[in-house]
């Protein structure tokens, strides 16, 4: 018998690095996905560096230095809002909140969706059926009204907003994961694992989940886009956290003070453009990832 210089752990690490490298090489060949990633990276950087880029004092209504709805100037590159705050400062800090809520909501949605989808696909008996019915039930409830009702019941805080969006948006993910699970469940390698003595937990964690995960991952980026849009919508409808500034609450403010009619475009356009850009880049990255992980979509 030959002894090997490699331990199992080293082998695992080498394999993972190899897989990552390959995925990245594949991703790089999608130009649109790369553009999305760069734009996204910019926004995340801005959100992370918000305290450096703009003084948080600029968010305070009482300490505002500008006039009401001033147009862009050297001091306020994007003008001021109805309270005399710099729109640029609001925008930078708003990126934090919007991205945070978007990502947290997505995480909640993904966890619920993946768990429900995986179990409802994997267990054929009554647990699976009940979960599937539950998914369908949530799916037919119109998303926005559900979010509205939940938001008004739970109260207006940042965490609640994320929770609301997460709870309202998981059924789509669950259905996707369920269909993937059903198809993977029929693969011969699951039979092989069963013959080797694998139980349900092993089958799920070692065979189904790793093969579903790339799908989940690609889907995540698409869900983030929806979550950010929903956060914007809820804030715009006045259900956001009143103590924080997000792109959605900016749009809400702008709308209430009639920025549209008074021609204060600098108050409306920047947050709107930011939302569109972030959503678009998440979608581009998501689509590229989906093609990377799902070879059937790959064009030859």
């Amino acid at each position, binding site marked *: 018998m030959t002894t*090997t210089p490699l331990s199992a752990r080293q082998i695992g690490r080498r394999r993972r690095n190899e897989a990552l490298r390959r995925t990245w090489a594949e991703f790089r060949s999608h130009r649109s996905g790369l553009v999305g990633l760069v734009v996204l990276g910019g926004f995340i950087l801005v959100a992370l560096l918000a305290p450096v880029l703009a003084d948080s004092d600029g968010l305070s209504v009482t300490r505002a230095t500008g006039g009401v709805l001033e147009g862009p100037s050297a001091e306020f590159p994007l003008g001021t809002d109805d309270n005399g705050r710099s729109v640029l400062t609001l925008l930078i800090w708003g990126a934090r909140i919007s991205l945070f809520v978007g990502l947290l909501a997505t995480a909640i949605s993904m966890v619920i969706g993946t768990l429900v989808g995986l179990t409802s696909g994997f267990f054929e008996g009554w647990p699976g059926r009940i979960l599937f019915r539950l998914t369908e039930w949530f799916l037919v409830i119109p998303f926005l009204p559900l979010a509205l009702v939940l938001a008004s019941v739970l109260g207006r805080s940042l965490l609640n907003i994320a929770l609301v969006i997460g709870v309202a948006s998981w059924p789509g993910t669950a259905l996707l994961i369920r269909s993937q699970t059903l198809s993977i469940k029929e693969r011969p390698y699951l039979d092989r694992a069963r013959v080797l*003595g694998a139980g349900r937990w092993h089958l799920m964690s070692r065979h189904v989940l790793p093969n579903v995960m790339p799908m989940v991952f690609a889907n995540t980026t698409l869900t983030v886009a929806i979550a950010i849009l929903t956060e914007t919508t809820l804030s715009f409808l006045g259900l956001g956290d009143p103590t924080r500034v997000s792109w959605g609450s900016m749009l809400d403010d702008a709308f209430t003070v009639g920025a549209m009619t008074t021609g204060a475009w600098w108050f409306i356009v920047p947050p709107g453009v930011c939302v569109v850009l972030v959503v678009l880049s998440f979608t581009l990255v998501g689509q590229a990832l989906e093609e990377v992980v799902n070879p059937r979509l790959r064009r030859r």
Partner: protein
Amino acid sequence: MTGVEESTASLEARGVVVEFATRGGTIARALDGVDLTVGRGEIVAVVGESGSGKTTLARTLLALERPVAGSVLVGGTPLPHGTAALRAFRRTVQMVLQDASGSLNPRQTVYESVAEGIRLHRLAGDEPGTTEADLVAGALSDAGLRPPEQFYLRYPHELSGGQRQRVLISGALALRPQLLVADEPVSSLDASIRGEILALLLRLRDELGLGVLVITHDLGLAWNIADRIAVMYLGRVVEAGTTEEVLQAPQHPYTQALLSVVPETRRLEPVVLTGEVPDPTNIPSGCRFRPRCPAYADGAPDGEAARAGVAEACRTVPLEVLPAHSSDAGRDHLVACHLRRPGARLDTTPSAVGGSSPN
């Protein structure tokens, strides 16, 4: 080679019946009572066309399908229920599934695939020579993948068909089973690779005392490696015996027809049966092979069955399930055919059903 049963008989099917519900709501009887035994150190081939139930039999023996009647016994004890109880049984009986490319998780390396069983059964130790990597390396070399390190990090799609089949075999061997069920182990492989895999099965039997049940449609393969053969048709074993008996002096008209269309056996006049194996939702009355049987010949008065006076029985009397071994020691060649039952008047005129005498 001893085809005779010993007390250590390891894997046994007793009157196994497996049913599936079809989309239309009807019940398909994939296995309709099967008795079969594979002992340690013995190679048994189950042959038949697709639709004969041979793959279902393999899956049932491995507890992947649950019989509605009958039982599967390992070392004389019935298969347990439940994953944990089954796990111990899995160490004794392993399987190599039909589709070598689909049976490996595309996201697992060769190392992980082979190590899977070792991890599930916690077989690895800390002593040098018993670590996980040592066991994997040993299993890979046993299956002829040498040097094993060279294959560790490969993914299934980077392997040739023969190599994938070897990875599957080594994954099963890593558990040191006493019995191996191989479902069409070489049907997807190139002819020149085929011999190597078959030789491997023979070697494992000789070196490790492995009992092997080979599921195949290929009679040549059975001639190459099997000690005994069971011929299946529509969910039943219709003929069983030693390889020499079944292939050189076939008794059942179905076996005779199967044998006659193997291109290599030119000495036989080909008896090409019409149609294909009927679907198991609607098993013919009497003898299940009757509609295609050249001896019954659609009930023709000059057919062999009619001349032997069993045509009526072919139509109406169901045949009994062939036992895994005959009670009559030394006579293990069994056949489920009305023509071969004591009451039939066997005429001696040579006919298509007469078969060929050995040599």
